[in-house]
């Protein structure tokens, strides 16, 4: 192996690639050649680093210096300073927002400091297309141990003792699932992987498949041995082309090395797997629907029992595990159940990956021990609100099946049980943070649009009920809300929960129920006062400038697309109400928070029309 003075680990996840990794990489390569350093410094493209918002990011080994927001223009300076003169280049380092100083080392950055990496153990460290690099990080040692030293019962016991629970959302004990399938007698069993990550706001599975595809495959090999399966399928969304490509490459490499196929590692055990591309249907995340989809049919759920462990894909016993679940199997087998239980709580052991997004400063993927307080995740790792002047309002967990957790519950430890108590669910781990400018009624409506659209149509309560609730929410946000709407929404929600067949319908009303539970005053203001206090529902608000705060800077007047803001320089401005279309541009632009949002006003609607005509 050739030796290099430094390795540049550049993130080539979807996020960083979109932010410009390929261009920056080409620029660095060119610059290294120019300076004659191409034989001393090596560029390695890795999977997703997790700190997506700061992309493109790069980690320089051996010093472990972290560079972010790389641009082609900065490359010559970076190469000259760091790689030629040996002075790390401060300008591209992460900056501490309060103290305004640069933080050179990755592990000193708060975003990384509080994390423990198990599922994401190889993220950003290895080339995902290299099986050798995976093996160098203890890869396939667990598979070898499981295939040569352990019986299926041993494997199941280890996973049960560890307390591994499914990371796809429901948190069903993985060991138990394997045990059921293991006890089923059949000529063929299937080991399946659910890579149909459909929850909007969650992207950890994509990241694992892109950054460390072998960890998923190794988990599947171990699972296959436990249940006695010789065939596996990884079901991946067609929207994740990079993940598909890396998985396929990993499978090919495994076949070549004898880690998939007949008589793996001479153990007598045979297992092979293939990739199946999903075709875009959220409901296919449900296990029975996913299996119908692999059979080439409409992905509609069917009643259980019979459970897939007895009759699954092609009516054969099948186990379906989520990507993140499978990625933690190998280290658990290798290090034992006690190691797994070192993190987390009694009932929620281990660690969990969360996708932090929304109005938060540090957006990206984080892995923390189960039971970490929500507050730590949002403030210490996430760095608090993106706009420091705005207050935290709520964090949405569990996607369209989940709910909104309000500020007063931010101290809860994040475990399956504690999250459910709030009315949200753990789900796949999406955390969308919202600041005070978010309208909770509109948020509920957003999720209902999603579920009404994605309902497969099999059960009437879900198909029709979600549509009816969506119409009601639309009415409320457009000023047609009526007395009693809140109660009707609650009744309908409970009916849909009680009478739907699968998880989609049973959880579809959660966003409504949880927002009513914590933000009922907002619903009431929408219905009774025709007032959306955040100014998001444009039919239910009016904007005014408070004269005593306004400095007359004119920023709002320039932002207004209607020319509805008038006033002299350095003197308080005012809004011509008849021309205002409530677009909220002035509110977003004002640096002094002088724009106030009031209830809707009667106005001469012809004024806007006349103005449009004039233009």
């Amino acid at each position, binding site marked *: 192996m050739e030796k290099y003075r430094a390795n540049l680990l550049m993130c080539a996840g979807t996020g960083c690639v979109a932010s410009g990794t390929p261009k920056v990489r080409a620029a660095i390569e060119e610059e290294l050649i120019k300076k004659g350093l191409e034989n001393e410094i090596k560029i390695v493209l890795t999977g997703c680093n997790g700190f997506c918002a700061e992309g493109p990011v790069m980690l320089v080994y051996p010093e472990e210096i972290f560079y972010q927001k790389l641009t082609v223009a900065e490359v010559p300076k970076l190469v000259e300073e760091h790689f030629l003169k040996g002075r790390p280049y401060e300008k591209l380092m992460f900056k501490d927002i309060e103290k305004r100083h640069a933080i050179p080392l990755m592990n000193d950055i708060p975003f990384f400091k509080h994390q423990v990496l198990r599922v994401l153990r190889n993220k950003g460290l290895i080339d995902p297309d290299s099986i050798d690099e995976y093996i160098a990080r203890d890869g396939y040692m667990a598979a070898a141990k499981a295939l040569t030293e352990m019986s299926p019962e041993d494997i199941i016991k280890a996973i049960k003792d560890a307390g591994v629970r499914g990371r796809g959302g429901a948190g069903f004990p993985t060991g138990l699932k394997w045990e059921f399938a293991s006890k089923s007698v059949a000529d063929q069993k299937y080991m399946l992987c659910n890579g149909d990550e459909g929850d909007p706001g969650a992207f950890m599975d994509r990241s694992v498949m892109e950054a460390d595809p072998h960890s998923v495959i190794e988990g599947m090999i171990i699972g296959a041995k436990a249940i006695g399966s010789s065939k596996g399928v990884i079901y991946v969304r067609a929207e994740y082309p990079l993940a598909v490509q890396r998985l396929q490459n990993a499978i090919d490499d495994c076949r070549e090395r004898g880690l998939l196929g007949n008589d793996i590692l001479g153990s007598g055990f045979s297992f092979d797997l293939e990739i199946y591309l999903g075709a875009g249907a959220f409901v296919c995340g449900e296990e029975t629907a996913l299996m119908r*989809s692999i059979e080439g049919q409409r992905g509609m759920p069917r009643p259980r029992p019979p459970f897939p462990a007895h009759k699954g894909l092609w009516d054969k016993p099948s186990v379906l595990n989520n990507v993140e679940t499978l990625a933690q199997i190998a280290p658990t087998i290798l290090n034992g159940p006690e190691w797994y239980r070192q993190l987390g709580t009694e009932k929620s052991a281990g660690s969990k990956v969360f996708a932090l997004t929304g109005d938060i400063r540090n957006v990206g993927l984080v892995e923390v021990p189960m039971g970490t307080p929500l507050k730590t995740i949002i403030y210490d790792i996430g760095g608090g609100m993106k706009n420091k002047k705005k207050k935290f309002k709520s964090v949405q967990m569990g996607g369209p099946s989940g709910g909104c957790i309000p500020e007063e519950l931010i101290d809860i430890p994040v475990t399956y049980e504690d999250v459910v108590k709030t009315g949200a669910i753990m789900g796949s781990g999406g955390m969308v943070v919202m600041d005070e400018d978010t309208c909770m009624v509109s948020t509920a409506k957003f999720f209902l649009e999603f579920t009404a659209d994605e309902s497969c149509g099999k059960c009437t309560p879900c198909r029709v009920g979600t549509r009816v609730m969506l119409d009601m929410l639309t009415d409320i946000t457009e000023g047609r809300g009526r007395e009693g709407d809140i109660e009707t929404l609650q009744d309908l929600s409970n009916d849909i929960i009680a009478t739907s067949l699968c998880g989609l319908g049973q959880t579809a009303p959660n966003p409504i129920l949880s927002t009513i539970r914590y933000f009922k005053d907002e619903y009431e203001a929408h219905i009774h006062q025709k007032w959306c206090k955040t100014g998001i529902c444009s039919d239910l608000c009016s904007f005014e400038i408070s004269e005593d705060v306004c400095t007359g800077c004119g920023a709002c007047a320039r932002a207004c697309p209607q020319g509805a803001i008038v006033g002299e320089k350095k003197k308080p401005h005012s809004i011509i109400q008849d021309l205002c279309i409530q677009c909220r541009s002035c509110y977003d632009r004002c640096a002094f928070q002088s724009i106030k949002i009031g209830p809707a006003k009667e106005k001469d609607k012809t004024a806007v029309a006349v103005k449009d005509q004039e233009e």
Partner: protein
Amino acid sequence: MLQEIDRVIQQYKGKPGSSIPVLQRCQEIVGYLPPEIQKIVARGLKTSAAEIHSVVSFYSFFTMKPRGDHNIRICLGTACYVKRVEEVLSKIKDNLKIDVGEVTEDKKFSIETVRCLGACGLAPVMVIDEETYGAMTPKKVPEVLAEYS
């Protein structure tokens, strides 16, 4: 084109559960799945046209309408929603003078919406063909579209 479709069908023929991969390949070849193509696939896989149509109409990946030369996919996931992707979408609609699911007169662009592209770190996100554009703003729309015209 028909020969290519035939080759795909021959490759999968007799393999259970092959309708979705076959349709995916056919859509790659033709660009969309009009009833004629669905009938050819049904005949080739020895199943009914109704069966094939039930699959095509169920999954959002399949389209029965032709797309433009450049297909714009806009993410309507939660993170993008919170970061107000709606404003970006309406700007694109205004610029191209078409609605979601339509194609411009010169057949150059079409707009689709998708549920989460999994690039939430870059929200709001859109994808044109295979290229991902993150941190979109209404202001950036004209320059991004200009790259393709």
